[in-house]
């Protein structure tokens, strides 16, 4: 009987093999570059992410001996490295969030007709407060929240990525999402017809 190895096992195997055959690491690059890029670009902007995502894989490759499959998945480990590298760009992240907030606030005069028509502008009504809330929250909360929202990691993977117990992740996320929903609850972005 032929069994298909799980993706997790395949990933871990690729790391193990890459200790002797470095080229084997490329499969992880091809598999996860777009996901990691989306996460980094969402937090720092595309321009910074273009470089930084490549650095994540370089750092992962150079530190591949430190990966322990008993602790979690390769995916969670990669996001952990990305989050560590992101931490040196807190200034850039704050800047990016303030750009997102201002972009949301500026609209209404110079926004394109098409944006208005498509209703993307009205959605912007909620984006200003959302960017503001993300700016204001503690970094540890933001890391966990964005690993959940952007990277769509499980609680276990987030715990592995951040090096904290799973229970801590659960309580941290419950608290921060409750606060976030309260902050957004006061905004009514759509008046009239609802967007599909």
């Amino acid at each position, binding site marked *: 009987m032929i069994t298909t190895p799980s993706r997790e096992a395949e990933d871990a195997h690729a790391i193990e093999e890459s200790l002797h055959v470095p080229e084997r690491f490329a499969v992880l690059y091809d598999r996860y570059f777009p996901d990691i890029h989306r996460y980094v670009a969402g937090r720092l902007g595309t321009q910074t992410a273009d470089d930084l*995502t490549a650095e994540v894989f370089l750092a992962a490759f150079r530190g591949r*001996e430190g990966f322990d499959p008993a602790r979690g998945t390769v995916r969670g480990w990669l996001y*952990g490295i990305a989050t560590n590298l992101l931490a040196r760009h807190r200034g850039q992240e704050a800047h990016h969030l303030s750009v997102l907030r201002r972009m949301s606030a*500026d609209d209404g005069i110079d926004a394109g007709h098409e944006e208005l028509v*498509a209703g993307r502008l009205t959605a912007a009504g909620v984006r200003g407060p959302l960017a503001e809330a993300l700016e204001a929250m503690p970094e540890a909360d933001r890391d966990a929240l964005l690993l959940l929202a952007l990277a769509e990691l499980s609680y276990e993977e987030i715990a592995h990525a951040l090096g904290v117990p799973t229970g801590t992740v659960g309580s941290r996320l419950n608290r921060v999402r409750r606060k976030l929903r309260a902050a*957004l609850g006061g905004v009514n972005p759509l008046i*009239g017809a609802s967007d599909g």
Partner: protein
Amino acid sequence: MDDLAQIRALMSVRPPTPEVVAEGRARLTAAFQEPLRETVSREPVLPEPTVGRIRRAIRAARWTALGAGLLGVAATTAVVLSQGAPDPAPTRSVAVLSAKDVFLAAANSTVRMPTTGKYWVRKAVNGRRLDSPDKRYRLAKTTAVESWVPRAPGGRAWTITQEQGTAPATPEDEKAWRAAGSPRSWTYPDRKVTLHAEPGERQAVWNDAGKSMTLFDTPMTPQALKALPTTPEGIRTYLEKVVADGYGAEPVNMNANVFQYGTQLVMDFPVSAEVRAAVYRMCAVLPGVKSLGTVTDPLGRTGQAVGFQEGAAARTRFVLDTTTGQPLASESANSYRGELIESYAAVSSLTWTDEEPDLPAKQSPQDRPAD
């Protein structure tokens, strides 16, 4: 949308370009030659400083931003606001055609358009009505915009705009404006924008990147326009892909969106008569389209207005001339943070031509990267 979906929407980005992926892969491949490190560490190894060359390479590869920027310029630049506000409740003629009849009549009378020429040219007027900064009256702002896009790859594209000035929107607004001291400019501190009563200079922005305007982030190159399907079913499939690519995983009302982007396709791009007829035939059988009767568009032309019953499209009406098949205007009313913002784009011509643009003295390159 729940909070997580809102975060994803706020922070959504375009996927990395193939050049960025290739550059990163080359850096990784170079590292394959390195010997294994002595120390085993759970902590990631520190990254090397960023290389300027790579940044420049990446910047050169950013082309969707340019395309979007070009459209942005076209869309934000506007002429004289007519007295006819983009009112979602239009004046109805005695005999109101059904939306289906409107679209089929327009499809059947679509006049053949030239498909050869050095440039395609779109001339339009964009208008906006919004509250004055003190919220005591309504202002009307208009901009004339001409877009010249060369057929030849690598040719120079021009966007020529002229602010037509801002004024109180109606006679009543004018009274309130006088009571407020008849200001000649209006500053919105939170938006960092100032509007002026005086018309602006005619100015041109050029772009040599050989890129084209986009339909919801899908580049509409001359080749892409030529390859558009000419059947209603084909157009629907095509637009569904544009919408799905644009929204990503976000759930959307597909009928509302194919109406929205179908009408935008014929409004903004020099599509062939066959494609235009196919878009109209697709719209004719779309559940949710409704006729809004005979109306006068912002440029004073008579046309038939159609709308859509739900989704973001419900705040828009599309005006077309059923006797020629010409799209005339798209008008919308939106609420933004409690304020009503009315906007329109009225197209005066949309064609291929061998003429050259009449360029103003003030010209600048469109080279500022977004971000």
